[in-house]
């Protein structure tokens, strides 16, 4: 296998990596908000449940969670398993939502109570207060922490190899051990892919932070 072929195959795998990345963010960023609402719900059982969920998501390896989502429904209940790719998205979304919920909570709790009071006196409903006063300020406050998570996510996509999703890392592992392949160089090239991707992500997030720096 030539170097070019290897790079071409990795690039193909990178499309799957990119899909995991994008779909995870599309699912977990809003789901995190829902989890946050559950975390501070008036219903004590819901609150307790969400706390346990967050605790488990943060307290066990994502690799293990991937295996549970893919294998457990079939092994335990005889259900037809999700496709490998779908199981990956479910596991990633559910895991990252837990982290995002906690980040949102930190951001929301740091907003001065005077903002709520000003909105209340002006007659805003609870929903208007949240979406027009609190949420925009929260986004600015959590952006640096969200950037951290997003960068971690780029690298975490490689964990999908544990259930044999053919993303870039899985491909790199297969190519590296195949006969007449460029061998370990494959991993170096994969590393460059991850690094460049994260460089772009960090740049985009920095731009977003700048765009929100018009106020303090």
């Amino acid at each position, binding site marked *: 296998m030539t170097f070019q072929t290897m790079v071409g195959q990795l690039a193909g795998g990178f499309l799957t990596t990119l899909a995991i990345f994008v779909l995870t963010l599309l699912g977990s960023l809003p789901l995190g908000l829902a989890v946050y609402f559950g975390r501070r719900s008036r219903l004590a059982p819901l609150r307790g449940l969400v706390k346990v969920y967050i605790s488990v998501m943060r307290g066990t390896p994502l690799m293990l969670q991937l295996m549970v989502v893919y294998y457990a429904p079939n092994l335990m209940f005889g259900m037809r398993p999700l496709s490998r790719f779908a199981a990956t998205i479910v596991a990633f979304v559910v895991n990252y939502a837990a982290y995002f919920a906690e980040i949102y909570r930190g951001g929301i709790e740091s907003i*001065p109570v*005077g*903002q709520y*009071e*000003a909105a*209340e*006196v*002006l*007659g*805003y409903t609870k929903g*208007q207060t949240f979406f*027009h*006063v609190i949420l*925009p*300020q929260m986004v*600015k406050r959590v952006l640096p922490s969200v950037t951290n998570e997003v960068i971690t996510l780029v690298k975490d996509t490689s964990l999908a190899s544990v259930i044999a999703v053919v993303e870039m890392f899985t491909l790199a592992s297969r190519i590296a051990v195949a006969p007449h392949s460029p061998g370990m160089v494959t991993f170096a090239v994969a590393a460059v892919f991850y690094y460049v991707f994260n460089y772009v992500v960090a740049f985009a997030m920095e731009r977003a932070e700048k765009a929100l720096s*018009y*106020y*303090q």
Partner: protein
Amino acid sequence: MNVLTITGAQKSFAELGVLKDISLSVDEGEVVSVIGPSGSGKSTLLRCATFLETLDRGEIAYMGKKAAHSGPDGKSVYEKDLSPFRRCFGLVFQQFNLFPHRSVLQNVTDAPVRVQKRPRAEAEEEARKLLGKLGLADKADAYPCQLSGGQQQRASIARALAMKPELLFFDEPTSALDPELTGEVLRVIRRLAEEKMTMVIVTHEMDFARAVSDRVIFMDGGVIVEQGAPDDVLVNPTQERTRQFLKSYQS
């Protein structure tokens, strides 16, 4: 016409009585200043009147309609929907509490458009007039963080006025300001007084209270110790506690 009537207001925080049987009524066009040492309950009174805190006992009525009445067990019972009562008043905070992510103009127009459902164009036109009146015409597109404290407080007064309240509350409006900035805010409030805006002002500015008020209320220990015309309360108080308090201010 009575704009605000508070009867028998009582409020405790963790067993600590902060308001002990306060009654107060404010007439249309009247300017009432509330003075007193910190911890006297004057801010709590304002927060209860604006529904940021709830009374334990007592009644609150705006424009003759009761927002809170005494229930059968003597405890205050609030109306389910307080929004018609919130329309009656505005509150200017000590810390301004402008929305930092919105421009001055947006701060002033957002509630009229979103809460009162007024057409945006009309709200903006009125907001620009208000800002002009408060000396902020050139700051409409600025963000709060770009303004001085005095300008921020004037913007927050504009935000409150944009809702066309019957009554405007001020909670120590100059206490967060540098001394050289208090004048511009006090001048704005004085001008509103001349226009017969009904106002209740919690303040530590004694000279200002004397100049602007129709009535001064001195509170201490959760009760109204003395009230009356500014000269009576601030110059010739009848109560010893009032005298002590005023003396501590002069020295």
